[in-house]
């Protein structure tokens, strides 16, 4: 009960004191304002960074496991020869993986070859022809710019349709829209149903810009009767990539009937490189951001501590009066902590008012606007800074000897 009234009284005094010293409190809070603006901008930037990280993860395919006969990292002729002797990955094995794998969001088998492609009198040599299923758009993280991607029935069926990579489309079609027209791949004719979004050079050989995607069944009948399949498995949770990899490995060993203790006769690869690089960059940015934020909050906190010492010194006599009529240490401590926390929270609110339009202006660069989480964190941080930097002055005030305090002029 006492505590409630003391807290009310503390707030009353704190607000009255801040109001009585508007200019001083305003100046003292500047440091906090700058600190909290930094907190807000950093927080928003880091959130944006994480979001673009997750986006990058799925476009790059960092959450995808790549199964094939040849490892990506073959270092010697002997290794290559050994891999060459391995049994192929067959369609039956692909189907078994599709059925058994638990931790997969999408599974797409694919095969590829190179063929020239023609439209009327225009020609593009050496285009990658990919035979795959409808799931490929999820594992590969591609998006369609024009028309549509193939459906599941189309992937299994015999209708000759195709989806063009953006480079192929611009090479073959000058003014006309590719969708609905027919192109020739080798000796076969395919109807264009969609064009992919440009992926860019960043993805290098993984880019689908210079590719034509056709249904798996079409690929088998037109180009290659029993191809060596590759499988892309997009996992459900990137944090549990290793677990999923183990599951996949177990399934493959079982369906390829490998005796325990023997070596794998396939390879599961992943884009670890991208993941670790991206992780390193975002960690660096986050820690530099935290350091700058911490520094500016520290400076702001020192300012608040300073002004609170002044406030305590000015009101020594008042503290004496309060103690004489029965205020305990806790009551005095609370009173000054509320005062410093209020100054800082007011600073925090001011900072949010300043930072909000800035985040709107920098929406592109920051990768998003201010979120409620950031607002909450900013206010909590400012209250915490206030309490932390007000503690020493408040503690000194609470411990004042009432006789000495009353004698103070």
């Amino acid at each position: 009960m006492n505590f409630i009234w003391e807290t009310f009284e503390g707030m009353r005094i704190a607000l009255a004191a801040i109001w009585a010293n508007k200019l001083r409190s305003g100046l003292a809070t500047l440091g906090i304002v700058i600190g909290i603006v930094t907190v807000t901008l950093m927080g928003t930037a880091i959130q944006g960074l994480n979001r673009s990280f997750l986006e990058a993860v799925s476009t790059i395919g960092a959450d995808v496991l790549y199964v094939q006969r040849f490892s990506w990292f073959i270092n010697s002729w002997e290794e290559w020869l050994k891999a060459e002797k391995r049994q192929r990955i067959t369609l039956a094995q692909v189907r078994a993986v599709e059925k058994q794998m638990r931790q997969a969001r999408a599974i797409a088998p694919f095969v590829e070859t190179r063929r020239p492609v023609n439209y009327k009198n225009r020609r593009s040599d050496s285009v990658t022809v990919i035979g795959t299923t409808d799931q490929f758009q999820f594992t590969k993280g591609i998006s369609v710019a024009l028309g549509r991607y193939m459906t599941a029935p189309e992937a299994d069926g015999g209708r000759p349709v195709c989806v063009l990579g953006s480079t192929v489309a611009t090479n073959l079609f000058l003014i006309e829209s590719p969708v609905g027209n027919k192109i020739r791949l080798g000796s076969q004719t395919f109807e264009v149903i969609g064009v992919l979004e440009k992926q860019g050079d960043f993805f290098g050989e993984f880019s689908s810009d210079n590719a034509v995607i056709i249904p798996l069944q079409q690929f088998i009948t037109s180009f290659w009767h029993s191809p060596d399949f590759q499988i892309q498995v997009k996992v459900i949770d990137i944090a549990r990539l290793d677990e999923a990899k183990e599951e996949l490995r177990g399934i493959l060993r079982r369906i390829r009937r490998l005796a325990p203790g023997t070596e794998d006769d396939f390879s599961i690869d992943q884009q670890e490189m991208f993941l670790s690089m991206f992780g390193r960059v975002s960690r660096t940015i986050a820690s530099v951001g935290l350091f700058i934020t911490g520094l500016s909050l520290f400076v702001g906190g020192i300012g608040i501590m300073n002004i609170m010492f002044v406030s305590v010194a000015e009101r020594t006599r008042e503290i004496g009066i309060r103690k004489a009529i029965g205020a305990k240490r806790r009551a005095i401590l609370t009173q000054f902590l509320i005062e410093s926390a209020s100054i800082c929270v007011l600073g925090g609110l001011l900072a949010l008012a300043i930072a909000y339009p800035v985040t709107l202006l920098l929406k592109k660069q920051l990768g998003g606007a201010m979120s409620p989480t950031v607002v909450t964190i900013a206010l909590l941080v400012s209250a915490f800074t206030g309490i932390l930097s007000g503690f020493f002055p408040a503690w000194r005030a609470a411990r004042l000897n009432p006789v000495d305090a009353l004698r103070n002029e």
Partner: protein
Amino acid sequence: MNLIRLENISRRYQMGAETIHALRDVSLTIDRSEYVAIMGPSGSGKSTLMNLLGCLDTPTSGRYELNGVNVSEMDDNQLAEIRNREIGFVFQTFNLLPRSNALHNVELPLIYAGVAAEVRRKAALEALSQVGLADRIHHKPNELSGGQRQRVAIARALVTSPSIILADEPTGNLDSNTGTEIMALFEELSNHGNTIIVVTHEEHVARHAERVVRILDGLIASDEQVAGRVAAEEYSK
């Protein structure tokens, strides 16, 4: 049982190499409902004694029993609670909170006692009307005269119904007429059974009391009942 019982109380201040003996082995008892004046020259230790009696300070040695409770070894927070419950202070310089109005100043001890808002307000209004300030409750200290300020202070001392009212030179900052009014108020409180201890170095102020304790150099020089007590009204004539 005595209300106040001091046994061999000493209070020494250390000033560098020098030790100042503000009080030396003082023993004193005061009963409930007594009206005591403490007199003595400047620097004799009157305020030091008042601070000890009011639990604002603790003795260097000796034992102080208030209401049968040994308070000489209590810590800061326990003393704050005793001050809140048992003591009402009236100071020479009023010591009101400058930014709060009369009502809030009087309510303050009850806030620290944890009393609910309506009860607090009612008690404060009662105390203010008891000192004749029912029509000044919303005035801040700088909107009141010296005498009115001291009345607010007295109302604040009364509001918790303490065991003792301690006043250290309550008329020191007032002109003689206003001082007389304040002394009349104390007398009235005494007549209602309050225990009052007043420090003064004006003989005419002391004459209102029933008992005068004289201090010299930190020692009690004399302690006697007043024979011809003067009523305030008579004095002002």
